[in-house]
């Protein structure tokens, strides 16, 4: 294609980069995906620039025409928003699906090793709050399932309700945060009451897992809500 000569037009390149920066500033979503979008748009813009030259435009006219041809940066960014929202939601959901069982196993091990009340089928003291964790899982499970389903191939074909996947993923993320905070509060309560746990290692490990996952889930939920807001 005629794109070979574009490197000899610094002004054209600057105009292209300025346009890309204007689009990128309005995109939400994973950085790698946004960078890939910028690369793809850059290639198209430089092709458009070369095509305008081939029609006999001056460098200045070519840059203006190529950018006009691509459309207003706000329009372009808005057109990408549903896909970026889906990508953000899917990543968050898959992350929660992977970390959920790991965090759960860490807590089960910690409870089992110390023969804490739930292990004896008792809910006493701070463990009375444990049903809240179950409630969070009841909320997160369907939200995760729906997020994965609507951001896969089926979702791509349906192409509607773009706000749903990031909203569902945000709900799942917030439910995970609630579960983690509840577990951390319970274990703190347990540590302050007697009898105190005997084997601290697994409890510390489980608490660290919940702290880490809770922070990541909170960040993912925040990003999903931002992606959803970009769709309005």
């Amino acid at each position, binding site marked *: 294609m005629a794109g070979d000569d574009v490197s000899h037009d610094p002004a054209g390149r600057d105009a292209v980069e300025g346009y890309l920066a204007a689009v990128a500033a309005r995109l939400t979503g994973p950085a790698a995906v946004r960078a890939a979008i910028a690369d793809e748009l850059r*290639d198209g813009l430089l092709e458009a620039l070369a095509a305008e030259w081939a029609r006999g435009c001056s460098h200045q006219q070519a840059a203006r025409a190529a950018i006009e041809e691509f*459309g207003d940066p706000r329009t372009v960014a808005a057109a990408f928003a549903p896909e970026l929202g889906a990508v953000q939601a899917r990543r968050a959901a898959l992350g929660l699906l992977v970390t959920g069982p790991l965090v759960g196993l860490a807590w089960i091990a910690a409870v089992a090793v110390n023969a804490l009340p739930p292990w004896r089928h008792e809910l006493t003291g701070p463990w009375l709050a444990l049903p809240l964790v179950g409630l969070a899982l009841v909320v997160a499970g369907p939200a995760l399932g729906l997020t994965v389903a609507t951001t896969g191939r089926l979702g791509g074909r349906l192409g509607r309700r773009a706000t749903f996947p990031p909203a569902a993923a945000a709900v799942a993320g917030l439910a995970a945060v609630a579960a983690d905070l509840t577990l951390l509060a319970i274990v703190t309560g347990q540590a302050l009451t007697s009898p105190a746990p005997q084997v601290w290692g697994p409890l510390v490990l489980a608490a660290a897992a919940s702290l880490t996952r809770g922070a990541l889930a909170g960040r993912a939920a925040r990003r999903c809500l931002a992606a959803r807001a970009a769709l309005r």
Partner: protein
Amino acid sequence: MRAEVLKGHLDALLLATLAAGPRHGYAIKEALRAGSGGRFDLPTGTVYPALHRLERAGLIRGTWSTVNGRRRRSYELTPSGRRALSDERSSWQEFSAAVNALLGSAPWPATT
């Protein structure tokens, strides 16, 4: 022609531009414009998100290459995409035949 007119048909038209083989985003947009005699001249930047959606739906597959020192993403139809294009063509032919039969004929006689 305004982009809204294409609503509901854009996916099939994009798939059709890939029937002959892989193309990159700008070439797809140009094929759409040229193939429609200049009638379908969408803002180029809005074609790319539609391609991403079709890729997520498994109807097209994108691959990166390096051309003139820059990264380029080209798209090709997947087997599902070929089937979807074939289905779209059949249903469009049925639909357009029915519309032609109604709009292309003489005015209907008045009924009482």
